[in-house]
């Protein structure tokens, strides 16, 4: 099966501009996640979709970030306006919907990431 894909692979923008990242999960995966890794720091959870619904967006840094998953397929993450501290690698991951929370078998498949640089 095809893996998780992300577009673009790299993006260089100036502070104040807008960028939209796209993620196409593995077909049939209802769970979709966004993570971010800032250089030298750990991978941070941003939010989680179940189909088209936002299940958990507790990791979103602020209201400059907007994630959507219309139709429950691909997802977009928009940063507007971008700030210098938004630079990092944005990973998308997907997983099947199975089991109950906590003990669920939840192998997450990560995409290659989008490297965002804000100048």
């Amino acid at each position, binding site marked *: 099966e095809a893996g998780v894909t992300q577009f673009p692979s790299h993006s260089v923008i100036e502070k104040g501009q807008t960028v939209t990242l796209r993620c196409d999960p593995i077909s049939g995966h209802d*769970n979709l*996640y966004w*993570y971010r890794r800032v250089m030298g*720091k*750990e*991978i*941070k*959870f941003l939010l*989680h979709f179940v189909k088209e619904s936002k*299940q*958990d967006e*507790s*990791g979103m840094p602020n209201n400059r970030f907007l994630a959507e998953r219309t139709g429950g397929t691909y997802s977009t993450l928009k940063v507007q306006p971008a700030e210098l501290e938004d630079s990092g690698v944005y*990973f998308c*991951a997907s*997983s099947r919907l199975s089991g*109950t*929370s*906590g*003990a*669920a*078998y*939840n*192998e*997450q*498949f*990560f*995409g*290659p*990431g989008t490297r965002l640089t804000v100048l």
Partner: protein
Amino acid sequence: GQQVMQIPQYQHVQEGEDFTTYCNSSTTLSNIQWYKQRPGGHPVFLIQLVKSGEVKKQKRLTFQFGEAKKNSSLHITATQTTDVGTYFCAAPPNSNSGYALNFGKGTSLLVTP
């Protein structure tokens, strides 16, 4: 939510030596996962541990989950150059979150021939 602390941050070994990375949490974890990220790549799932005291093996890799479900370790026996990469542990922020993961900072492993 709880943080998972991972040590060491870096490890440099000679090929054939063993390697271990450790993860610790101040609170009980519902489960813990391990991922590997090769240089320039993305995290790839290795395993999930759920039960107290669980031990799982994958060839030269041994994964353990502590009895109190607050710590975990990954041990590689006789490292090879193909083991190079960053190993992350990850766990749900709390018992109710289910699917979201908090990642440790990772241990970067360098293996020299």
